[in-house]
């Protein structure tokens, strides 16, 4: 698997500083799980953070701070260890890497899809109050995604199958960053349904009237 489409340097930088909102960070982190090259880039940015921390002029801690922390270590030690994963258990092959699998509540077989029409389906992952929406989309092999433009940014990360539009071909691990100017009509590649994570910061605007009406009910 060779990843051809990566997040922009700006996205990786904002992920590494901690500036990105959770839904964007989810898309970037999931891409990083599949992409050692972008992980290395993120580590470089984090190293800048490390050097700013190291260079910070120390400010004295309040009285009792140290003692309070030391006292809490006992509680931490009493808790069960954070991660125990048996090395003997067979390694399942997941379609959804972490951290996405955690947000989806399991791998693709666990997902409760809701029909979008035309055979496509979605599952919304983010809380309804959030301004940014993360969703999983499933587009049947060979079928188009309804034509749409964005009022804001859209990140699309492919997890299974592939899609193509006027900007290129996207397969597992590839991430498309689309802004408001891009009017595109992605089409899933033949052979396998395309499953992707899509994050948007504003409602998508569909060109045809019917999908626009449906938008209200489907929260696209």
């Amino acid at each position, binding site marked *: 698997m060779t990843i051809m489409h990566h997040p922009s340097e700006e996205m990786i930088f904002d992920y590494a500083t*901690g500036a990105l909102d*959770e839904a964007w960070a989810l898309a970037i982190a999931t891409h990083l*799980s599949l992409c050692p090259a972008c992980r290395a880039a993120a*580590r470089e940015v*984090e190293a800048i953070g490390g050097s700013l921390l190291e260079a910070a002029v120390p400010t004295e801690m309040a009285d009792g701070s140290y003692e309070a922390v030391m006292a809490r270590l006992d509680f931490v030690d009493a808790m069960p260890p954070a991660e125990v994963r048996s090395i003997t258990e067979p390694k399942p*092959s997941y379609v959804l890497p972490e951290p996405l699998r955690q947000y989806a509540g399991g791998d693709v077989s666990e997902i409760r899809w809701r029909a979008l029409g035309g055979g496509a389906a979605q599952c919304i992952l983010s809380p309804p109050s959030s301004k940014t929406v993360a969703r999983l989309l499933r587009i049947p092999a060979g079928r188009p995604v309804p034509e749409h433009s964005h009022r804001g940014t859209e990140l699309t990360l492919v997890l299974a199958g592939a899609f193509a539009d006027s900007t290129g071909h996207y397969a597992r691990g590839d991430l498309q960053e689309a802004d408001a100017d891009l009017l595109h009509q992605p089409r899933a590649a033949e052979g396998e349904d395309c499953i992707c994570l899509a994050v948007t910061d504003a409602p998508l605007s569909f060109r045809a009237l019917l999908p626009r009406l449906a938008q209200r009910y489907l929260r696209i």
Partner: protein
Amino acid sequence: MTEDLTEWMRRVAKDRDREAFSNLFAHFAPRLKSYLQRSGSEPLEAEEVVQETMINVWRKAALFDPSKAAVSTWVFTVARNARISHFRKQNRPEPDPTDPAFAPDPTPGPLEAVTREQEAARLRSAVDALPEEQQLVVKLAFFEEKSHAAVAAELKLPLGTVKSRIRLAVQRVRAAIGEPA
């Protein structure tokens, strides 16, 4: 000093050594407090996040990998995550290297593993040597966890200017990391 940091981390991870942890606390807690106060946090809140961070350093010490990051870089990431959880009440999504779906890093060369702390030292001088205008945007981005767009809005600069300043800063730092010791 940096050899000490790595050794203390190793002792905390392997031996649950509280004396080594005390040394890490003495080194990092006052720096973390300054760092967090630069973001405008009240001293009391900064203290809380520092305490959270140091507890997590203890709890997650086994996840620290000296072949991947300098100690200060790793502590920065722990603090960043503590801050996101404390102030924004959000989770921090991160890759999990133990996940079967995780694409592993290419095997490091024999020399690579021992050089993270040396890299960090070179990197600090590179950050110090950045032109004022680049330092300003980079510091704002880190200290206040501001996105490119938010930095541009704060400084009333075009987004493109902020992008190019940060990009130049990252390139210089990358070049410094790549230089032979």
